[in-house]
Structure formats: C-alpha cells, structure tokens
C-alpha cells in the first residue's frame, strides 16, 4: 500500500503558537485565531448566510469582528451577538476562501464555547441541542430506540398522520430514509476479512446517527473495502465522536467524548481508522487540537488523529480494482462542507465515482456550498436552512441528475428533503453506496 497523504487539519495555516495569547487562553485557541483577519472581505461571497441575508453581521468577516469586539469588551454577550454566532452554519467555506488563513471553524467553536458557558439557555443551538445532544445522540441505546420507533411510525408520518404534523415535523419526516432505525453496529462482526489478498487492515467508525440512519452505508463501506483487499475491524462498543457537541460550543462534553473514542479506538492494530461521515472525519482529525491542553491525552489524540481517513480519501490512495458492474446514471456530486473545507477532500470522491462504468458526473454551480444541514442547524434555524437548501436544489435541478451523491449523513438527510421540496425523483446516496453496487458488494 502506498504512503498516505492525509487531508486533515490545515497544514498551511499560520503557526498559532507564534502569535500572542490572551490571558487564560491556550495557545492557538480563542481570540488569537481571529488576528490574521485583515478585513479584506474575500470570504463574503463564499458564505451561505451572507448570500442569503446580505448582512455583514451574518458574514465571516462580520462574525470575526463581533467575536473580537466581544473579547475586547466593546460589546457584551448581547442577544444580537448570540444570534449572529448562532446563525453561522460553521461550514468553513470561508476558511477555504481566506488568504490569510484564519481558522474560522476553530474560532467559532471557541467563541461558542465561551458563549455556551456564560449563557447556555440563551443560545439556540445550545438549548435545542440540550435534548438532542446531551440526552439522545450521546446515548447509543436511546438513539437506537428512538429511531426504531420512528421507523415504525414513518409510513404513518408520511401518510395518514401527515396532516397532524407541524411544517418542521413534516420536513423531518421527509428526511428520514427507509433504513432509519436499523443498526449496523449491533449486528456487525468484529472482523470482516478481505476478499482476495489482504493489502491493509482498517477500523470502521460506526458513529451515532450514521449507525441508526444509514446502516446500509456501513454495509456498503465494508463491502467495497473487502473487495479491495482490506480487513475491516468493527470494534464495539463505539460512542459518538462529539462533533456536533463541539460545533455547538459544548466543549467539555466534546472533550469527554473525544477521550472516550480514543480509549475505544486508539490502540487498535490497524493502518487507518476510516470514517464515512464527513463531519465526524473532520472532527476526529482535529482531536489533536481539541485535547492539546490535556496532558494525559494530548499525545494519544495527535497519534489517533493522524490515523483517521475519510473512506474516499483512503480508497482513492489505493489502486482500486475496476468495479465489474455498471451503474448507468447521471450523478451530481455535492461536496459535504466538512469534507471539502474541513479536510480538503474534493477530488477523491469524484475519482471513485468516475471509476464506475456508466456513471456520468454532472457539474452544477455551487456544489462547494453548504446545503443548509449543518448538524442541528436544520432544526434550530429551519427557515434559513430551507432557503439555503432551495438555492442548492435549483442548481441541482438544472443539471437534471438521476442520482445525488454526498458523503455525510446530515447532507444526505437534507438533500432528501430538498428532493421532496423540489419535486424531483432522484435518489440521494452516499458515493460508497454506488461503488458497492458496482462491485456487487
């Protein structure tokens, strides 16, 4: 197997440790991250909320300005300050656009953490997150039970009971895939052996939402890996990686969850830890930064993060066997933000799709823009989320694809809703699902 060139935490960014540090802040965290911003504005037209609202306060440059003003004591934790931080999708498109290398994602996480600590109940993603993040997503058994119930109720929610639902609940029902309520991790074998000669041993992160909503994607991932000579370990138990918690500013919880994942997966004898959810992958790759101040875990976190790969990143670096079966379809690939902006991975998933005979990749404008899913954003800020989604769907509809492919559970759910809203009939799938079909895996 060839050397891996990881996409990951950006290596080209300014050395955070070389800049000054505000009192009480760890190096490379907090307000320091805002300092390279020179107010050029090149981020503005890349920001989905700025494009939708046209307000500087809802642009990356404006948010940096507010975060800085708050840290310097020019403004307090006002309702407006909270609102504008809350309205950020944290899609990190601005990070890709920024010539100065402002690490906006990390900046927003640390600003939200200060916010969450000071005023958790006034912060929408914080308060709506309370139920979802603390009580549901972090508890696998409960999450499974909840989605098993939804699976049973799904035909009802989409049919006779539809009229009883609020618009938000109807949207949620439209998102639910038929596979909701399954669980791959419950039925998985500890090890799946490679078909043919073994080339690598990898571990699969089963995750939280992915496991109960898209167990078929895990099956497909294992199938494609085995077909290409990988032994796949599926360790149990596994818990949620804490990405959504970190994005919402629930730093303490996020760090505790990261330590748990490192305990669960850190010592495995494998070449790589594979993730098929972009948001989780980007977050796992940031564990080194997340736990940098934790003496007991810092080194382990760095070592673990270095082993993490998105499944497309890993497969594209292998010499893949040509899949035998054709999938005749026009496929629109929509970049998940935390794959493109969080891990700088855009070429690999497209390369994998091009491997499949019969697949015609169709380009459409703003494939690199957020779909409005953004973790729990779609629930916390439904109106703006839908506005952003509809813009995306208009571009996709014009390209007339048969299939929309995207490698992140949130995006898959949101795009399912988008297809329903736009009255389209395309399938919405993870790229690995199409690859598995082509391998007959």
């Amino acid at each position, binding site marked *: 197997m060839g050397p891996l060139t990881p996409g990951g935490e950006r290596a080209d960014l300014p050395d955070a440790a070389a800049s000054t540090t505000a009192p009480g802040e760890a190096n490379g965290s907090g307000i320091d991250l805002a*300092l390279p911003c020179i107010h050029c504005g090149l981020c503005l037209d890349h920001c989905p909320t700025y494009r939708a609202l046209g307000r500087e306060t809802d642009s990356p440059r404006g948010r940096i300005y507010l975060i*800085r003003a708050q840290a310097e*004591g020019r403004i307090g934790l006002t309702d407006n300050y909270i609102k*504008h931080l809350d309205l950020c999708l944290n899609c990190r498109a601005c990070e890709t656009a920024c010539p100065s290398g402002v690490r906006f994602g990390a900046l927003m996480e640390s600003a939200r953490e200060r916010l969450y600590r000071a005023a958790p109940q006034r912060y929408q993603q914080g308060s709506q997150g309370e139920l979802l993040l603390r009580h549901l997503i972090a508890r696998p058994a409960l999450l499974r039970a909840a989605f098993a119930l939804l699976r049973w109720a799904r035909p009802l929610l989409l049919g006779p009971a539809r009229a009883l639902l609020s618009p938000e609940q109807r949207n949620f029902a439209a998102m639910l895939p038929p596979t909701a309520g399954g669980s791959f991790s419950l039925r998985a074998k500890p090890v799946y052996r490679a078909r043919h000669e073994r080339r690598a041993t990898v571990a699969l992160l089963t995750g939280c939402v992915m496991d109960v909503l898209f167990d078929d994607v895990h099956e497909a991932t294992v199938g494609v890996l085995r077909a290409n000579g990988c032994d796949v370990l599926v360790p149990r138990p596994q818990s949620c990686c804490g990405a959504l918690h970190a994005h919402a500013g629930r730093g303490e919880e996020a760090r505790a969850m990261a330590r748990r994942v490192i305990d669960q997966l850190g010592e495995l004898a494998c070449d790589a830890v594979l993730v098929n959810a972009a948001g989780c992958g980007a977050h796992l790759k940031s564990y080194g930064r997340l736990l940098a101040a934790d003496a007991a875990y810092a080194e382990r976190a760095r070592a673990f993060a270095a082993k993490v790969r998105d499944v497309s990143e890993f497969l594209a670096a292998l010499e893949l066997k040509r899949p035998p079966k054709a999938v005749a379809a026009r496929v629109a690939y929509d970049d998940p933000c935390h794959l493109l902006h969080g891990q700088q991975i855009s070429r690999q998933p497209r390369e994998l799709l091009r491997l499949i005979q019969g697949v015609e990749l169709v380009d459409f404008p703003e494939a690199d823009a957020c779909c409005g899913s953004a973790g729990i954003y779609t629930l916390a800020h439904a109106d703006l989320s839908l506005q952003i989604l509809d813009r995306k769907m208009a571009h996709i509809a014009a390209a007339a694809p048969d299939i929309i492919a995207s490698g992140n559970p949130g995006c898959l759910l949101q795009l399912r809703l988008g297809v329903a809203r736009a009255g389209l009939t395309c399938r919405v799938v993870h790229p690995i699902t199409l690859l598995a079909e082509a391998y007959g895996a």
Partner: protein
Amino acid sequence: MESASLIQSLEKLLGVEAVTSAADELLVYECDGHTIERALPTAVVFPTTAEQIAEVVRLCHRLRVPFLARGAGTGLSGGALPVEGGVLIEMARMNRVLEIDEVNQVAVVEPGLVNLRLSQAVQGMGLYYAPDPSSQAACTLGGNAAENSGGPHTLKYGVTTNHVLGLEMVLPNGETITCGSRAGRGPGYDLTGLLVGSEGTFGIITKIIVRLTRLPEAYKTLAAVFPSIDAASSTVTEIIGAGIIPAALEMIDHFVLRAVEAYLHLGFPAAAGAVLLIELDGIRDGLDELAERIEAICRQNGSLEVRVAKDDAERALLWKARKEAFGALGRVTRSFYTHDGVIPRTKLPEALRRIYAIVEKHGLGIANVFHAGDGNLHPLVLFDDRKPGDQERALKAGEEILRVCVDLGGSLSGEHGIGLEKREWMPWFFTDQDLELMQRVRSVFNPEGLCNPGKVFPTPGRCVETRPFAKAPNVSA
C-alpha cells in the same frame, strides 16, 4: 434629527427586517477594507429595489440626514465610512443580473452584483467583464463604478469607466436619472463618464449597463523570477519600451512572495527578490513569439527563472497568488497599510528606491505587490498595532510615499479612490481653482452635501477616529 424617529420612518418604508440600528450590529459597519479609520452609521438599510432606495433618499433629504451606499466593504480608501453618521444603504441584496444581450455584448445589472459573478454568468457565451480588481471575488459592480476601479488587466483593457455604458442613479434629492445607453455614448454631455469615479458623492447608483468583452482565444502567462526589485523594474521598462503591451504586467516582491508561498506553495526559489507576472492574451497566432521576446528581455535583465503556465489550472493558481496577495499578508505581519499611488513607468526603479528608504527611515517594514505595467504602485507599510507609535509612523510614511509619487510626476491614486484616506492631500495635485471647480460640479448633484459627506475634498478637522485596528474604541450601548 431624532434618530429614533428616523429609524421608525425607515422601518415603515422598508420593513423592520431591512433596517438595522442596534449598536452591537452597527459596529461591523464602522470600517470597510480601509481599517485605520472608523465611523458608525445611525442605521443600515437593506433595500431590494431602486424604488426603495429612492424612498430612503427622499426621507433622508427631507430630514437632512446624511446617507451613503456600501457594497461589499472591500474599498481601501474609506469610501463607505459614514463620516457624519446617517443612513448606510447596503447594496448586497440588489445583486441581480437584469439582462444579458449576448449579441451586442451588453449586460444590465444591479449595483450589488459581485464583479466575478457577472463574468461567471456570461462565461458560457464566451464573454466576460474585463475590469478585474484583485477583490473581484467579493467586490460589487456598484462599488467598482463609484470608485472607477482598476485591476491587473487594465493595462490592456482600461479601467471601469471604459466598460460602463450607462447608469441609473438616485440623486440626493430623491429623483432618479438615467444616462448613457446600451448603444454607448449618446448625444449631450457624457454624464456616465462624470458619474463613474464620483466616489458615491453624486448619488446612489441603482442600475449599471456594462460592456461585455469576448474571451480571448488564448492566454500566455509567464512568471519571471528576479534576484532584485531593481532587475524586475528595469525589465518592466524595457518590455513596454519594446512596444509590447501585455494584458497584465504585475510585480510581487520577496516579502509578499513569502506570504503567498505560505498560502499556495508555488515553489519559487528562495533567492527571489521579485517576481513579474506577465500575461499575454488574444489571437493564438503570434503569442508564442511575443512570449519569447519577453523571455529574452527577462534573461537579459538577469532573471533566475521564467515559468510559463502550462494549463488553465496553473494560470489560475498564479492569478490567485497575485489577487489574494493582500489577504495572505495576514500570515506574515500583524498590521499593514495599503497605499495606492501612480508614477510614470520610467521612474519605477527610482520611485521604489525612494519608497524603501522612507519606510526604513521610519523603522517599519515594506511589501510591494502592484500593477508595474502602468506604474500603479501598492506599497504596503508593515507595522505592529501593539507597538506605541507604530501606526502613526506608518501613516507618516504613507504620506511621504505619496508625496514621492506626486513629485515624480505621478498621481495620488491609481484605483482605490481618494475617499476619506487621501482627501487632505488633494491640494498636492490640484490647484485651488481645480478643487473649487470639482466641488461646484459636486454641488450640482449634491447641493446640500448629504450624500457621502466628508469624502474626496479636504475638510477642516477630521471627525473620524484613527485607532489601531485591534484596539478599537468602545461602542456606547
């Protein structure tokens, strides 16, 4: 004027959602791309139609409240700073392409449209919008028209005024006028030419008719590396002296190169003192020969390496390096102050030597990335806003640099405008009579001075705060 009743009236006109007046939101509008000076508006409005703009202007006119337009806030002379408070009219929501006439190569657009988005919209027809400021991925066409913006390719294609065929504008009394036409210049005075570059002091632009240009058949993009700025400067003079007008001829000095390398990893030699980015475009035939002549001139001047972009991707990367160079400086310096002066091309080596000496005298750093082909300099004075006195020294150095440009027979501004930044220095360049006449022209459009006050002309006593970017004044709220 009671600001509460102003805000109520604005909300009645536009709806509550389209008006911002809270101190903790107005804060982000206190500066544009020119961050050294700051001023807060009383309110910001977000109109979506020209009629709404006219209503806002009529209200301001009636109440004697200052007002001004703001696009993406990328301007570098403080043109969008509400020096006397009042209503800031944000154009971001007026960003539609209203019409594309492919055959006649004309587009009609709203002023909030981002420059690059227009080129993207017509790319499929083999067309583009030629003026390309470095901020073109963010800046708006309304702002471009107001500032008469330039860009790297103005060397061959001219500046914004050469590409604006007509305008619709709301005058400061609320009346709407149109000038020019899609057929270009009409009879009578060339009002379009007068309005482009008026820096938002004649009224609010609500619609723009622009010329579209056919995409060239081919490009040839060269990056020539030189050991010193002097060698690169003489090369520029010789290329133009040889009768070659490239589409663009840009210089990037070693300091900027360091920032850009950290960002894009272009792999230029560490010994590089300066890089010239030279682009030829047009009919494919003959481009290679022209490129060879340029390469020969580069070699005669001691170039270390001449790289020719092998495909569109490499060309795009070289241009990304050039256009995002300002932004990338945040990686290597704490603060910097961007200047914009023009000198006669032949004076380039002398001007640069004198500029470097000025900055050295003040104990500051300097970086240079600029349009060498037309002598439009952008010296960037580097400083640390945390060091007491550093910003004042940077401002002083900037003033001396511009003085050198004017003394060498150049000008105060190539493309960033005078705005707030350079108004006090206008008398270096113009006589009292010149300035008096220009102000009389302004008063024809803007007799009460309510529209973007405090710009372009010297005013006794500055009413904005000049404070370091990172330690800005408190908002009273």
